[in-house]
């Protein structure tokens, strides 16, 4: 018992420090968003929160950003993950070049990427669509460093070669091996990578702003220029929304409806 006491103290100290580090900014946001910002306000007010739904473009921007995030998620699940698995399984010689390629977006500043892709998006907006959802293309490239690292770590942690061979001898074709065996096995890595990707998509500002697309962050910035309290309220609401999403994902449930593709 004597030895356990310091460990418990350390544990609680760390939890308290980290908790404070995370909660203080959130509380500050809440505090700021409830401060009076008009002549009619006296004391604390939730007016900033109440006028959120009335903000022009906000709901549309949120839904656009969520749709973009969903498309990026789909690209991760059906393009990036199978590709990473394929490279690990069948093309081990290409692992390093592939990794390097995936890390490039991290090395290139966002502004440089924007300058590079601006002509392409100009063409898209003229000839195809002006929808900000098309940003999912560039976003799926931006998220590569984070998603690939997470996937690669998950793939390295399991002997996927043996699992794949076992599945093949039992009659599984390549599609079933990837979607039915390997993907559920590296589920945690996929979920982690996807969350980082979603956070990045919902929080991205530079590219969408320069390309003149009204995404969630761009609209928040616009609101912030006219009413700081509302902008902070919207930001806090978006953080709480993501937090609720995270809490809704069952931690102990062994199957994910998204990943457990029953192909049999």
């Amino acid at each position, binding site marked *: 018992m004597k030895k356990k006491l310091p460990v418990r103290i350390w544990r609680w100290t760390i939890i308290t420090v980290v908790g404070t580090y995370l909660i203080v900014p959130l509380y500050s946001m809440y505090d700021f968003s409830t401060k009076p910002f008009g002549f009619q306000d006296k004391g604390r007010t939730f007016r900033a929160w109440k006028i959120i739904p009335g903000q022009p473009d906000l709901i549309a921007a949120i839904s656009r950003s969520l749709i973009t995030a969903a498309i990026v998620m789909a690209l991760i699940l059906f393009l990036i993950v199978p590709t990473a698995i394929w490279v690990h399984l069948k093309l081990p010689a290409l692992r390093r070049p592939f990794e390097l390629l995936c890390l490039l977006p991290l090395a290139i500043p966002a502004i440089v990427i924007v300058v590079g892709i601006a002509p392409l998006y100009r063409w898209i907006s003229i000839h195809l669509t002006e929808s900000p959802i098309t940003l999912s293309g560039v976003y799926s490239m931006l998220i590569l460093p984070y998603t690939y690292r997470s996937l690669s770590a998950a793939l390295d942690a*399991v*002997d996927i070669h*043996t*699992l794949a*061979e*076992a*599945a*093949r*001898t*039992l*009659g*599984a*074709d390549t599609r*079933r091996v990837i979607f039915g*065996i390997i993907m*559920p*096995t590296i*589920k945690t890595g996929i979920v982690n990578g996807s969350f980082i990707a979603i956070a990045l998509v919902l929080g991205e500002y530079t590219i969408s702003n320069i390309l003149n697309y009204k995404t969630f962050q761009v609209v928040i910035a616009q609101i912030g220029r006219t009413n700081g309290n509302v902008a902070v309220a919207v930001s806090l609401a978006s953080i709480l929304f993501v937090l609720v999403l995270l809490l809704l994902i069952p931690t102990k449930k*062994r*199957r994910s409806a998204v990943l*457990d593709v029953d192909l*049999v």
Partner: protein
Amino acid sequence: MSSSTYVQLVDLSKHFGKVRALDGLNLEIAQGELVALLGPSGCGKTTALRALAGLQELDRGQLIVDGKDVTFQNANKRGMGMVFQAYSLFPHMTARENVEYGLKLRAHKTASDKRKARSAELLELVGLSTHANHFPHQLSGGQQQRVALARALAISPKVLLLDEPLSALDAKVRTQLREEIRRIQMELGTTTLFVTHDQEEALSIADRVGVMRNGQLEQIAAPAELYDRPKTAFVAEFVGLTNPIAGKVSSSSIEVLGSVLKTLPGSVTSGNGIALVRPESIDVVASKSGNATVTSASFLGASCRLTISMTDGTRITAQLPSLDAAGIGAGASVQVSLLDMPVFVKAAG
């Protein structure tokens, strides 16, 4: 091809860069037979097994199973059941789901209740019916390999392929499981190819044991024949222990340590030779005027292993029943003679 031949590996060759893994390997397995491939690391035994499973492409050769050429058939169409050296259970599935997986993929889509009955039957067979709903991480290594065996057998495989399935297990579980593998194999009559580097494992459960070297089959025979009548020096030295003792060869016999022993076919036929004498072919009796001295004695339970130094300086190892070795310890003077058993003789130098 004899009428009972079920699996044929014909002239298999495979190179990995400059390494020759298989070099014209030929092997025939009868229906219901358990053949073990034994050999040192890199001899090509696993490559041969993987080629039969369809997991390894060949440079040359032909694979025939049940009269059909399967050389170019995909692994998922071959109907081979395989148990791997590494734990290979699908971690997101329970033991029962793992066993049912292959059945789900069968072309005729085995009905759900039949699948359940089959998986229950196989888990019962491997003694894990109470663990059907356990996930792999909740099972021990031995239990995982049993489930892997049940999974491989569930699809009623044409050939059961075992790739060193016991090597990751501890000694006690290994012995227990290898006996179970043999029992189940005999019960179901499944044609089995078993790859191992553990000679005790191979000799104890196989109908025939093939010793491989440099991508070729050096000798294939029943365990007792392989041990007692090796055809090459490599087989004699690889399977079991031998004492290399120099002697004079004349026609089909050799004179060693004062005894004349018959030589096995394939031995050198004249001049100086080295007899490869098994430790249990050496008789040791305590004698004050003996021709050797015991340098160390190891008690192995039922038997006792003695390291002996002959008066001419030759060191040999003898293995006696513990009862016969009672009272013979390190430093004891002993009389050594050879039992009248044929030996393999290799060329001296």
